[in-house]
């Protein structure tokens, strides 16, 4: 069955430090992969997505992610975290069936940023 695993439930980093959030997926076909961010009380905002081509994708707010097929991973990175990055981050895989696509989400990683 298709699934997404985010092994870290909660991560705390200091402002200015680098960040890597892990994501592993299970899907038989070529995956479409997404990272969304959810601030408290807010909806889901797309940070970046992998569709095809270059395996290193750039997103908004200085985030990037690298698709590694051999490891079934799509880890999210940022070289220098800002206090405003504190939020919950969700990795998702797009499952195509019958012409439509549903997103299967991981359980999320909550990021706390210390001053």
């Amino acid at each position, binding site marked *: 069955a298709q699934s997404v695993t985010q092994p870290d439930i909660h991560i705390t980093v200091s402002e200015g430090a680098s960040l890597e959030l892990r994501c592993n997926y299970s899907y038989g076909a070529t995956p*479409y992969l*997404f990272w*969304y961010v959810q601030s408290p009380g*807010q*909806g*889901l*905002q*797309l940070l970046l*997505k992998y*569709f*095809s081509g270059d395996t290193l994708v750039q997103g908004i707010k200085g985030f990037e992610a690298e698709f590694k097929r051999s490891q079934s991973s799509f880890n999210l990175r940022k070289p220098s975290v800002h206090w405003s990055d504190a939020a919950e981050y*969700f990795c*998702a895989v*797009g499952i*195509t*069936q*019958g*012409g*439509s*696509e*549903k*997103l*299967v*989400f*991981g*359980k*999320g990683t909550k990021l706390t940023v210390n001053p």
Partner: protein
Amino acid sequence: EPEVTQTPSHQVTQMGQEVILRCVPISNHLYFYWYRQILGQKVEFLVSFYNNEISEKSEIFDDQFSVERPDGSNFTLKIRSTKLEDSAMYFCASSPGQPGETQYFGPGTRLLVL
């Protein structure tokens, strides 16, 4: 920038009551979705809708749930007889259509069933 809107932002209802959650997708999008997020849990797919019919639905989407696009702009989720376990944040999303296209999410409706 176009965005998905949802109303109401919060709804409190009594168990057994019917609720209708409303969404206005982005105007030129063709696919519409409902997801839900029970407090502290992951976001779960409920249903996808295309060309005025359901494309796919999850096991959660039982006979108590229905979706409708009553006019050219609104997309609704109806829960016929709410249960306590329906308490969750419900997100509407829309996409232009092709697989891999971004799904744009609304801000959500927080439903509390008492």
